[in-house]
């Protein structure tokens, strides 16, 4: 229950000394290397280019020294072994990928097998199909209370749902059900492994009971 929200140093030092202990040698090259390391981390973490002056002031270090180390950092990353660059942009320093690798990176991102990602509308529709299957498009609309048949196509394209005949009512609408791919994506052996709404409700109610509502005296 303890709060480590603000700087956790005192505690931290005793908890994981080798990882968090900051100080050791402040002299000579040790301090220099340390400042260089901090500058690298700062250039990495900030999204807006910061000037050497801004960084120096915030760190309480001499401006000349900071500027010199930043330039050295930019030089080092300039070498061909690095896919990253530290460039001067708008008077400040900023880390980014090198332009000559952008095609490679973009192709890489395209080829990545991403985790199952769905828009909220698609997720809602998938959830309705999963729990109400077989189910028709009008029934899905009815439950979701939102228009949007486009997402059905998305789900069909992604092979997460498929058709399952027609419902014998007026208009004979197509029925939809989830696929084997759906089971694979959600790590299910079969549909009976889907948590029931009741189970989910129980957890939710329990969570409310424990976290918020003060339990009445003596149960």
């Amino acid at each position, binding site marked *: 229950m303890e709060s480590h929200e603000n700087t956790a140093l005192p*505690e931290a030092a005793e908890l*994981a000394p080798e990882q968090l202990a900051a100080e050791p040698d402040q002299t000579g090259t040790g301090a220099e290397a340390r400042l260089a390391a901090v500058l690298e981390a700062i250039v990495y973490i900030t999204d807006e280019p910061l000037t050497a002056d801004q960084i120096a002031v915030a760190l309480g270090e001499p401006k000349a020294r900071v500027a010199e180390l930043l330039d050295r950092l930019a030089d080092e990353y300039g070498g061909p072994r690095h896919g990253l660059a530290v460039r001067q942009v708008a008077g400040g320093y900023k880390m980014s990928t090198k332009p000559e690798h952008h095609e490679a990176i973009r192709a890489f991102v395209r080829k990545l097998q991403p985790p199952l990602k769905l828009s*909220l509308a698609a*997720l809602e529709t998938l*959830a309705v199909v999963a*729990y109400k299957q077989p189910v028709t498009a009008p029934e899905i609309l009815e*439950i979701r209370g939102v228009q949007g048949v486009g997402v059905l196509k998305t789900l069909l394209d992604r092979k997460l749902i498929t058709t399952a005949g027609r419902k014998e009512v007026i208009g004979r609408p197509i029925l939809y059900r989830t696929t084997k791919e759906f089971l694979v994506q*959600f790590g299910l052996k079969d549909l009976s492994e889907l948590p029931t*709404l009741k189970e989910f409700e129980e957890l*939710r109610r329990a969570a409310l009971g424990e976290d918020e509502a003060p339990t009445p005296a003596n149960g």
Partner: protein
Amino acid sequence: MSSPLNVHLEHYEGPLDLLLDLIRKQQINIYDIPIASITSQYLEYMQQALSLDMELGAEFVYMAATLIHIKSRMLLPRDPALEDISPEDDPRRELVDRLLEHERFKNAAEMLQQKLLVEENVWSNPQMLAFLDEAESQELAVTLIDLVRTFQQVLDRAKNRPVYAVEGEDVSVPEMIQTLRSLLETLPARESLSVVDLLERQRSRRAMVALFLAILEMVKMQAIVLSQRDAFGDIAVRRHRRFGEVFASPEAIEAIEKGYH
């Protein structure tokens, strides 16, 4: 003997936490717990907690009973002859095992907390977004839990949706009985419908009320049977064995129609 609890009453998550604290604070050998004094300290804690209106779960009471039981077993003299044939386990054994197991997980929790502490001091600044299509970046990585949660939210939304007053959509109780009747007729024997589902399918509050009354009427007519597996669980509707009989005579429906006009 002074109690380790005198200073202030600590809050314990459960009885195992309380027992462990008593044992560790007094540097008691956990493999040889003086069960009589620990039991009295435990009971003293419960009494103090009670007097301060502190909330103690049922598991505290259950543990008190367990402690007293162990204590009584330890007091009972054992026949030495019998002891030779089948030496009895230490009555404290099971409790000690549970305490040790619990303590191991408390330590594991502490270790996890330390790991979190380190991670809180580490920052990442991924730049993936620049390389993603806009459509992709708006999508969410989803898991099974998201699926259930989303379905729950859809249903909640459906329940809270403003009821549009659709003229002519409203149904009477007799109409609803007919609807239910045809739904149940096509249902395989022994299968049931969910009342929650049925209610959710209604488009207006009036229709929901009509459905509810229709169900009650049909129970009275002995046309349907309601069952509920768990308290607060969903209610299932299935055909009564007299289902066919009831609807064979038109009088039953007529009587209801009169009643609602």
